[in-house]
C-alpha cells in the first residue's frame, strides 16, 4: 500500500455522494413541434424498414435484385448479433464463424429438400444444429484461451469448409443443395419480410439476454472472471451458454441465407467471409445492438461492390487517380479494403463504432436532446489481485 495523503482521501469521501449524481433528467421535454418532428422521423424510419424494400405503400419501385441485397443485409445483422454475443458479451473470439453459418445453411437445405419439411422447421433445426456445434467448439475454448483458441476457430472454419461441406449426401457436393423458399415468401420482395421476422426474433432474444441472469453473468465474466466466480457464477458453464446462443443465431442466419439464395454451395463460406463477419461486428460497435445491426448491414452492402456501384462512385469521380488507380482494384474487394481502415478508426478513435455515431440520433428519437455521448471506456483488469 502506498502512502496516501489523508486529506485528499477525506475530500474524496466527503464529496463521494454528491460528485457522482448523474445529471438530473432535463426538466423540460421536447416541445410539441419537437414531438411532431420525432414522430415524423419514426414514421420515416418505419417506412424505410417495413415498406420501402417490399414496394408496399411506396412511390419507388425497388428491383428484385436490390430487395435480395436487403434480405442479405438483414441476415448479416443476425450473424453480427451472433458474433456480438461471443465477442461482445462473453469476450471470446471466433474466426470460424462462416462455418457456424454454413452448417446452418446446409442443415436447413437438407431438412427442407431431403426430408421434405417446411422451411420454418428447417430454419429452426438449423439454429439448433448451429447451437450444438458451437457448444462443441466452446468446449475447446475452456482449455485454450486467447491466440491459441483464435487459431483453433480459424482452423475449424477452414476445416469445415473443406470437409463437412464436401460430404455429398449432406451438401450435394460441388453442385450444392436446393433450398426453396417458404410458401407466401417466394418472391425476392416477400422473402425480405421472412428474413426480417428472423431478425426481430433474434433482437428479442438478445434483448432478453441482457435483461436476465445469463447476460449479466456473461458481462461479469468477460470483464472480471474472478469477481464473477465469487458471485457464484460458473464461468465455464456460462461460456458454453454464450457459444450456444451465438450458434443459435448463426445457424438461424445460415438457414435464412440458404433459402434466400435458393441453393447452397460450399464456396462462399470461406475465410474471407469469417473476416467480414468479425469486421462488421467490431466496426458496428461491440455490445451495441443497433451499432452491430448497422455495421453488419453496411458490410453486407459493401460486398461484391454493390454499395460502390450503387452510389456511382466510379462514375462520379472516374478512375481513381494516382498510383492507386494503377492497382485497378475491383469493387469486389470493397469490404476487405474499407474494413481494415474502419477497424483501425474504431480501435483507435471511435471505440463505440457505428453505435456511437448514431447514439445522438437515438437519444433524440427517444425524446431527449440531440447530443454527442462519449463511448464508455473499456475496463481492463490486469491486476491478479483484483
Amino acid at each position, binding site marked *: *500500500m502506498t502512502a*496516501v495523503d*489523508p*486529506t485528499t*482521501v*477525506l475530500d*474524496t*469521501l466527503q*464529496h*463521494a*455522494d454528491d*460528485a*457522482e*449524481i*448523474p445529471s438530473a433528467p432535463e426538466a423540460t421535454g421536447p416541445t410539441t413541434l419537437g414531438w411532431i418532428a420525432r414522430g415524423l422521423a419514426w414514421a420515416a424510419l418505419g417506412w424505410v424498414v417495413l415498406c420501402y424494400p417490399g414496394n408496399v405503400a411506396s412511390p419507388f419501385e425497388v428491383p428484385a435484385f436490390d430487395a435480395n441485397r436487403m434480405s442479405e443485409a438483414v441476415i448479416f445483422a443476425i450473424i453480427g448479433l451472433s458474433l456480438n454475443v461471443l465477442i461482445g458479451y462473453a469476450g471470446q473470439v471466433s474466426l470460424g464463424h462462416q462455418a457456424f453459418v454454413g452448417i446452418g445453411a446446409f442443415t436447413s437445405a437438407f431438412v427442407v429438400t431431403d426430408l421434405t419439411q417446411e422451411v420454418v422447421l428447417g430454419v429452426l433445426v438449423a439454429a439448433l444444429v448451429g447451437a450444438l456445434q458451437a457448444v462443441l467448439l466452446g468446449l475447446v475454448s475452456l482449455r485454450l484461451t486467447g491466440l491459441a483458441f483464435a487459431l483453433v476457430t480459424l482452423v475449424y472454419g477452414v476445416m469445415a469448409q473443406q470437409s463437412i461441406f464436401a460430404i455429398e449426401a449432406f451438401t450435394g457436393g460441388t453442385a450444392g443443395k436446393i433450398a426453396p423458399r417458404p410458401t407466401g415468401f417466394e418472391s425476392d420482395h416477400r422473402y425480405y419480410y421472412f428474413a426480417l421476422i428472423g431478425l426481430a426474433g433474434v433482437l428479442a*432474444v438478445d434483448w*432478453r*439476454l441482457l*435483461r*436476465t*441472469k*445469463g447476460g*449479466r*453473468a456473461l*458481462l*461479469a465474466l468477460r*470483464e*472480471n472472471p*474472478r*469477481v*464473477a*466466480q*465469487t*458471485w*457464484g*457464477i*460458473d*464461468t465455464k458453464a*456460462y461460456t458454453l*451458454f454464450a457459444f*450456444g*446462443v451465438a450458434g443459435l443465431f448463426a445457424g438461424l442466419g445460415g438457414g435464412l441465407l440458404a433459402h434466400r439464395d435458393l441453393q447452397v454451395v460450399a464456396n462462399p463460406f470461406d475465410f474471407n467471409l469469417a473476416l467480414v463477419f468479425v469486421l462488421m461486428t467490431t466496426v458496428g460497435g461491440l455490445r451495441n445492438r443497433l451499432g452491430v445491426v448497422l455495421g453488419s448491414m453496411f458490410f453486407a452492402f459493401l460486398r461484391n461492390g454493390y454499395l460502390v456501384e450503387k452510389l456511382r462512385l466510379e462514375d462520379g469521380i472516374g478512375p481513381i487517380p494516382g498510383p492507386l488507380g494503377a492497382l485497378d482494384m475491383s469493387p469486389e474487394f470493397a469490404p476487405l479494403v474499407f474494413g481494415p481502415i474502419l477497424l483501425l478508426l474504431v480501435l483507435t478513435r471511435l471505440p463505440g463504432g457505428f453505435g456511437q455515431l448514431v447514439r445522438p440520433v437515438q437519444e433524440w428519437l427517444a425524446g431527449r436532446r440531440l447530443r454527442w455521448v462519449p463511448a*464508455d*471506456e*473499456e*475496463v481492463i*483488469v490486469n*491486476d491478479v*489481485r*483484483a
Partner: protein
Amino acid sequence: MSAPEPTTVLQTSGVSIRFGGVQALDAVDLRADRWEIVGIIGPNGAGKTTLFNCITGFYEATSGVVRFKGEDVTDLPVHRRAALGMGRTFQNVGLVKGSTVGENLKSAQHLQTRYGALGALFGSTRASEVERETEARARDILDLFDLGHLWDTRVAGLPYGVQKRLEIAAVLATDPELLLLDEPGSGLGPEEADELGDFLLQIREQFLLTIVLIDHHVPLVTRISDYLYCLNFGQVLAEGQPEDVRSHPEVVRAYLGIDPDAEVA
C-alpha cells in the same frame, strides 16, 4: 463474541502452497468460529491474500485442507464455495466496473435468481417474476448503504471510496455466511478506518456474519477482531487475543525490525 453454540465456520489445516521456489504459505492453521471477526495482519508479501485465494479456491493448495461449515471444500471450484456461503472482496475492488451499480447488484444475486438462463431468453414468466424480486432486493440493499441514487451510474466513474462501499454491498447481496475482506480499509485515513470498524461490527449483527479481515490498519483490526493472526513469510508468526498479538515481540520485529519499509499502521 459469545454465540449460543460456537461452531467452526472456517478452518484451514496445514495449508501450504509453493510457487516455483517460493514457499508462499507454509502449513497455515486458521480458524474462524461463527459470528467471530478474525483479523489477519502481516507485512507486505506475508501471504495474506494468498491465504484468501486458497480459502476461496482461486489457488489450489499444494497440501492441507480447507473446511467450510464442517465440509471439506479443498477441491471445490470458486463458484461452488460461493454457493455454500463464502463471500469475499478484493484489494482492487471486485466489481464489474463497466456495468452500472444496479446491474452489479443484480449480477451479485446470481445464486438467488433461480430460473433457467436459457428459458429466460424465450420469455419464461418465472424469469420475469424472479427478475422483479431481484431488482427490488438490489434496491433495498443499495438503500441500506445510501447508494440508491447511484442505480444507473457506471461503476468505473465512481470515486474509490464509494466503490469500496458498493463492493461490500454487492458481496452481501450474495447472501454469505462468511465474509472474507481483503484490505477494506486501504486508502482510508485513521478517522474513516474507525468508521469502517463500526460499520463492520454493525453488518455482522445485521447479516449474522463471520468475518475474516486482512488489513494494514493495525489499530482498526485489533479493535474489532475477536481473534488475531499475524502472518510472516507464509507462516503464522503469532495468534491469539488481538492486544497480545500486537505486542508480541516477534510481531513487532516483523513490522519494524526485519523490513523497515513495511508499513506501520
